[in-house]
């Protein structure tokens, strides 16, 4: 069986599910951010697969470059916030930051 669109979609699906599982189970803020990176990557694989097999020209690749750019911005801000939380609470457990809970 030759490699087709479905192969890439299933790889992307598996990566997405791993990312979702990471986001759901981690209580470590950096772990959650890594799960988000996985989810963004699976979306990128989909974009480029559809761009290749759908004959859509360069649109999918351009969008994936935008996604990579936003992921970089998200990582920079997210990790800066994590460091701030660490300085404030001495931990980066996302359950510990419940100061605003009524």
């Amino acid at each position, binding site marked *: 069986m030759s490699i087709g669109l479905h192969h890439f979609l299933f790889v992307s699906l598996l990566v997405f599910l791993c990312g979702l599982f990471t986001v759901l189970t981690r209580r470590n803020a950096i772990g959650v951010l890594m799960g988000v990176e*996985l989810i963004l990557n699976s979306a990128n694989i989909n974009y*480029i697969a559809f761009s290749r097999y759908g004959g859509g020209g360069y649109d999918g*690749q351009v969008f994936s470059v935008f996604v990579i750019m936003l992921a970089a911005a998200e990582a920079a801000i997210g990790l800066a916030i*994590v460091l701030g939380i660490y300085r404030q609470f001495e931990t980066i457990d996302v359950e510990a930051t419940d100061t605003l809970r009524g």
Partner: protein
Amino acid sequence: MYAALFYFIAGLTVIGALGVALSTNVVYSAMSLLAALVGASGLYVFLAADFVAVVQILVYVGGILILTLFAILLTHQIAEIQVSNRSVGRLPALGLVVLLGLAMGAAILRAPWHVEPLAAATPTTYGIGDSFLNQYLLPFELASVVLLTALVGAIVLSRKELRE
């Protein structure tokens, strides 16, 4: 040969992603993320997206992953994190993920995808640059503003407070 290489790279990606999800040590998770990102870059090469593959390596592996490792090492005492099950336990999360996976897998198999015959793989840099400066000029410029804002924001957030 082509198929074997594809399965090798796809396996690298999926095993890396599984390592991120299941490893109990966050440093090992970061290393697995490296495998997953490099594997995804290999998939882009398979899909004839050479520019995006190189950008993926440069930005993700060279930037985001290094930043993540810095953050891990700056916030010590997290090497011994335990994946506790107070908020969403592993079992409910696994159930949700499996259900979602089955639904999406069925959708992938059943959807009538519109597949065109493959064009020859040509260098994509010219086309992407052309799109950025014509059709996507406004988002491209906005992206610059977003990156600048993120840069300033990250500096403001992570510097030491100035005490009077």
